[in-house]
């Protein structure tokens, strides 16, 4: 090979090296742009996820486990054959009701509802504020599909501050989903229906006619009671259990 040919070959190899290096640099820049785009997509997904979460739904599986073997019909928890009916007039936004749901009612449910002595009916007494009504209606609509008490209990465990605008459609849907409402589209239609909204208003009127002014308030009905007996707010699970036994 002459010196001239060798120089030509050397030049061609250098050009090829430069071309490959340039191509690689271009591709690495493209890869960097792709990485940036990927991170942007992750950020968008996180924002969408956070914006639709509508608050934290808590202890759903615990609630569903506790209630899974107790019959439910509408907003009634317990066997239809139970002699005593206990009406609880409550507001889903009420923190005292939440405390009752966690500290008082589990004992009553375990001892007297599960055993078939009493059945417990949730009725709305919407006195906290405007967010209480859609919450109560959503609970009734969940009850139409046999998940009313799951809805109520999960709502309490996920409860926010009173009238803090946390009762959004997203929040209610998350609670309904966690409660195991099977047909969310039907639940959505029913919670806005006139019938359900009237039921919320009627139960409030009933609570007022019984002389109740706060939540939760209880009334009991059974063979040992004279009609529907208002109990007010029993101080403990034991007091409520005694009232149930007295009505039985």
């Amino acid at each position: 090979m002459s010196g001239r040919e060798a120089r030509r070959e050397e030049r061609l190899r250098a050009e090829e090296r430069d071309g490959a290096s340039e191509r690689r640099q271009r591709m690495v820049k493209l890869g960097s742009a792709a990485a940036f785009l990927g991170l942007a997509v992750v950020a968008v997904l996180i924002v969408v996820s956070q914006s639709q979460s509508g608050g934290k739904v808590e202890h759903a599986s615990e609630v569903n486990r506790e209630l899974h073997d107790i019959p439910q019909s509408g907003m009634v928890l317990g066997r239809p054959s139970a002699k005593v009916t206990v009406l609880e007039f409550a507001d889903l936004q009420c923190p005292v009701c939440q405390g009752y749901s966690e500290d008082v009612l589990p004992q009553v449910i375990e001892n007297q509802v599960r055993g078939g002595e009493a059945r417990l009916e949730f009725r709305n007494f919407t006195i906290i504020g405007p967010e209480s009504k859609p919450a109560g209606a959503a609970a009734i609509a969940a009850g139409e599909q046999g998940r009313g008490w799951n809805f109520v209990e999960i709502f309490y465990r996920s409860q926010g501050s009173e009238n803090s605008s946390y009762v959004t459609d997203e929040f209610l849907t998350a609670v309904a989903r966690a409660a195991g409402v099977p047909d969310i589209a039907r639940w959505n239609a029913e919670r806005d229906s006139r019938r359900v909204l009237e039921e919320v208003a009627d139960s409030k009127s009933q609570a007022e006619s019984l002389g109740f002014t706060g939540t939760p308030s209880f009334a009991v009905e059974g063979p040992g009671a004279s009609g529907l007996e208002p109990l007010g707010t029993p101080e403990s699970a034991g007091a409520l259990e005694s009232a149930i036994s007295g009505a039985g």
Partner: protein
Amino acid sequence: MRGIGTFLATFGIGVATYIAIADSGGGAPVCIAGGHGCQTVAESSYSHLAGVDVAVFGIAGYVLLLCCALLRGDGARIAGFALSLVGFGFSLYLTYLELFTIDAICQWCVASAVLMTLLFVTNAIRMLGYVGTER
């Protein structure tokens, strides 16, 4: 790298499909080691994105990553890297939610997060090592 990517993505499709099928109809994946973590996570409001089960997004992601692994060339390398970065980043977020927000761990979700992490590492090596080359 393409062989490893193919294996991981195929495995990921299986895991995500199981979660999606178990979640459909209000159910939940069964935690092999016991416990109720999978049910708690499935019932969480974070299990759906714009009304769609997150596992469905997972299936779509793994299928696309499988395509990238099967194809040659810089386009597949860059797309695989970007997709696995999205999957890895979102898996990190979901794992954070499980640990600090939902307070429950779903073994199937952890398995998917591990697969997505391995896919990200594989695709990053594939892109950084081979992009712009003739191989």
